[in-house]
């Protein structure tokens, strides 16, 4: 390791220029008398340009800059789960212990507790041939997650010795025949994707319990989704719903340049929530990264890489990981801010010209892979985008949409009507249904794709009819079209709307979603029959059992009762015919 040191030449906000050192690109350096952490982002003659991860007020030219010889890395090993980090993997809890409630600077904190002892259970034995990614044992990190210990990429050979027992994470638990010592902790540079054997096509849905997402615009495990939307449209709530309810085994949540109070809400609430799939606290499978909008901007830029590297590490154990980044626009703005301090030639709207390639590189780290160890693992990435004025023609939205396969378009108009989740069903899309249809047929119902098509085409027809209604009023439409409008209203109010703050409605199993969709189609079919038999539209719409069916979704045990409620509705609709 090099201890070469130089001097500060210039300071401008988070960007510091040093002379007298010749570091590598992206090398971590220590800046100033307080040793603030920084990263080299440009070399210019004998000057090295550094982005500093902490506040630079009061730093002077002439103070020292010291090389560390390492690039920005994260520590990976037992202890990651349930943690809350800042953008450069400093645990916020230890920062509170050392500096109190306000984040000051010049404090180092290890990303993992290096002294804590974990029970290591060896699964490989002496004499086994191993290589990078091979699992050699595990630690029961939380009640629900087995943290697998792997050979770090780049090492291979025959195991000379391995032992189970209590160790801290830097102590060797396994020795290879060439003398390499393997500890439970490994480090990985955040800007380099972790290696895998090959990428596979995603063909299993990530089930989120959110009806509009699962049913109409599904995301596959290993897929990518973008959620652009103006402020107040519900990006954060949607992201948090996904973090709560999606059936991933590991969740990495990056709060990138967002609100402090909102992060606190997540931090206080998650430990009390139970995972519907395991019945254990959700926090057990979660790692959070919180770099709020007023924390240093360079650390915000790094936070996204820190998060995805942690996600890849769990993927390499063979887990399905879901990563939420809220919001990627703040990340892009951090790039813009740094780029402007570097006086780089700007691209569109002042963003650096490399914005879209950085976005692409980030989303490309998602995927379903065969790991080096031969397992099947995935990282799904869901990025929120905050377009200025809600106008998605801006560079970050456009750069995102070019890459992601699922687009959940949030709509201010729907949010104003308190239609939540305010995802526009006309403009949103998912490119996964084809790949996933077989899974739905095998696991939910053989006609699942057809039911979905019917529901979405009803919504399309409604949009066309609404244009006419805007001109002539709904009474001018023929009866069958008025019924279509009622059915579509039922889809919107009963199916698409979902109350994230309601204990029961917040999560719907996929099977129930299918039943609800079928109930809507049944209402349509039977009403058509009844109206052909002389019943009026008002009669069928107003049967009390329909209200019961719709309100029932707020009650426990709805999945068991829906069949019965549906039967009652059908009966009452049939009766309207007899009355006439």
């Amino acid at each position, binding site marked *: 390791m090099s201890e070469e040191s130089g001097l500060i030449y210039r*300071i401008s906000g988070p960007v510091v220029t040093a002379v007298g050192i010749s570091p590598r690109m992206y090398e971590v350096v220590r800046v100033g008398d307080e040793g603030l952490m920084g990263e080299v982002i440009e070399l210019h003659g004998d000057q090295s340009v550094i982005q500093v991860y902490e506040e630079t007020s009061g*730093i*002077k030219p002439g103070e020292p800059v010291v090389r560390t010889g390492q690039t920005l890395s994260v520590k990976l090993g037992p202890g990651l789960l349930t943690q809350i980090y800042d953008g450069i993997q400093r645990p*916020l809890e230890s920062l509170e212990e050392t500096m109190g*409630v*306000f984040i000051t600077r010049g404090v180092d904190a290890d990303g993992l507790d290096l002294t804590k002892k974990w029970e290591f259970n060896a699964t490989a034995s002496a004499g086994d041939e191993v290589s990078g990614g091979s699992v050699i044992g595990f630690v029961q990190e939380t009640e629900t997650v087995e943290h697998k210990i792997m050979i770090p990429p780049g090492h291979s050979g025959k195991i000379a010795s391995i032992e189970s027992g209590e160790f801290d994470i830097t102590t060797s638990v396994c020795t290879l025949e060439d003398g390499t010592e393997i500890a439970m902790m490994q480090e990985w540079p955040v800007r380099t994707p972790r290696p895998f054997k090959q990428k596979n096509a995603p063909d299993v849905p990530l089930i989120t319990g959110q009806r509009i997402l699962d049913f109409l615009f599904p995301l596959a495990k290993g897929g990518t989704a973008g959620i652009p939307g103006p402020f107040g449209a519900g990006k954060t709530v949607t992201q948090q719903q996904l973090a709560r309810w999606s059936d991933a085994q590991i969740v990495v949540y990056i709060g990138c340049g967002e609100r402090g109070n909102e992060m606190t809400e997540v931090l206080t609430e998650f430990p009390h929530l139970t995972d519907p799939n395991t019945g254990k606290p959700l926090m057990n499978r979660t790692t959070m990264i919180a770099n709020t*909008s*007023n924390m240093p901007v360079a650390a915000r830029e790094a936070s996204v890489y820190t998060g995805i590297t942690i996600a890849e590490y769990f993927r390499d154990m063979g887990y399905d990981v879901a990563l939420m980044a809220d919001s990627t626009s703040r990340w892009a703005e951090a790039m813009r801010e740094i780029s402007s301090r570097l006086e780089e030639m700007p691209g569109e709207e002042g963003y650096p010209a490399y914005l879209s390639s950085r976005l692409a590189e980030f989303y490309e780290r998602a995927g379903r892979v065969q790991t080096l160890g031969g397992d099947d693992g995935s990282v799904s990435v869901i990025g929120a985008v905050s377009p200025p004025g809600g106008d998605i023609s801006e560079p970050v939205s456009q750069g995102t949409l070019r890459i992601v396969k699922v687009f959940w378009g949030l709509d201010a108009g729907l949010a104003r009507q308190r239609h939540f989740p305010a995802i526009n069903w006309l403009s949103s899309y998912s490119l996964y249904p084809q790949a996933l249809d077989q899974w739905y047929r095998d696991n939910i119902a053989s006609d699942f794709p057809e039911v979905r098509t019917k529901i979405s085409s009803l919504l399309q027809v409604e949009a066309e009819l609404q244009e006419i209604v805007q001109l002539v*009023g709904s009474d001018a439409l023929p009866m069958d079209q008025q019924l279509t409008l009622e059915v579509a209203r039922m889809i919107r109010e009963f199916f698409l709307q979902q109350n994230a703050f309601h204990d029961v409605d917040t999560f719907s199993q996929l099977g129930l979603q299918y039943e609800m969709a079928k109930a809507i189609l049944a209402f349509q079919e039977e009403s058509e029959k009844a109206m052909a038999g002389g019943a009026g539209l008002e009669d069928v719409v107003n049967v009390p059992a329909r209200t019961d069916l719709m309100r029932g979704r707020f009650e426990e045990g709805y999945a068991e009762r829906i069949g019965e409620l549906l039967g009652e509705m059908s009966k009452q609709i049939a009766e309207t015919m007899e009355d006439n």
Partner: protein
Amino acid sequence: MSGKEYRTITDVKGPLVFLEKTEPVAYNEIVQLRLSDGTMKNGQVLDTSDDKVIVQVFEGTESVDRQTGVKFLGDVFRLPVSKGLIGRILDGAGKPRDGGPEIVAEDMADIIGAAINPYSRESPEQFIQTGISAIDACTSLVRGQKLPIFSASGLPHNDIALQIARQARLVGSDDDFVVVFCAMGITAEEYNFFVQDLERTGALENAALFVNLADDPAVERLITPRLALTAAEYLAFEHDYHVLVIYTDMTNYCESLRQIGAAREEVPGRRGYPGYMYTDLAMMYERAGMVKGKKGSITQFPILTMPGDDITHPIPDLSGYITEGQIVISRELHQKGIYPPINVLPSLSRLMNAGIGEGKTREDHKSVSDQLYAAYAGGRELRGLVAIVGEDALNERDLQLLKFADIFEDQFLRQSRDEDRSIDEGTLDLAWNLLTNIDTKYLVRLDQKWIDKYHPTEKNS
């Protein structure tokens, strides 16, 4: 640091002064300039290197010449803070403006402020009753929240801010708020209006004012809100006060920020505002909140006027992405003669759900709020339709919604400037009464159990 004075100014450009070859000067260090006629000006280092320093001068660079002496004070900008700030009026740079003595400092606080560790924050969930139905029912405010008022020129945002300052209190608590008021580039007339109102109600003794008026230096506006927030933090976290910070007008602040950016020839972002405006605003807005282990709190009410009533303009837009909601003032309602002209549809309080409900306001609050919203939104949409096809084309449900929208505006939104409605009888019961104008079968957002309990004509008695 030595008191050495430099006379090495090379360039003066707008509010910026460029100096050559100095001793090492720290980033953000405070600077004093002595003009040839003896006038003193203050500034701050924006960029520093071995051979060049850029200083922004708060009072503007008028009369600065190459002979001007520049002294670096060896420290970042600090505000003398003490409990004695309460009841005082200071200027935009933190000097007494009320003719009173200098503040006797209990501490010198760095005005940039440090970020609160998200882990150390306390979740804001104590409902603040403002006595204004539109806010209490539909965009409920909680302690520690930052909730801006998005207004526009010619609208009564000042009256609303003052009414909130007067009436805000926790239900079932005697804790009063201390008001920290920060004026940025507002007119003397507006300022007098605020002061007189605060005086009239006796609130002035419980307030600290930081004032930069329209004819005060524009660059000074960049530090005025930071002084106010530094004072607020000190009062809240060292002396357990609940502080309500009102600052007006954020639009003037952003203009000054743009001015500095332009003078530095920075690459501009949208509409010429600097690319770091989001971060800059966040460093102020995020100073709201509550922290573990401290009794006090900071609640912020920034007021901003949307240029051209445009909510997508960068100032309201970036603010909306940082703040926990917004209260939107509507010109249309104002022209109808409704006070307070709050348009509840684009208004939002993100922390509302944590602050309302059983034990906080009332169990039916969320349900009622959703229903009011849905019905009013429906009614307003129908107004557009009626203008084209006439009321005859509407069905029963639509007719009821249409009528409800008028009633809602006239009876629920409208209240007088000194009317302080309690959340249960004043606001929620009123809402239930108005909702009787719609058949219960159309009130789909209301849980049946609340209809049974609260509906004036349908409840089980």
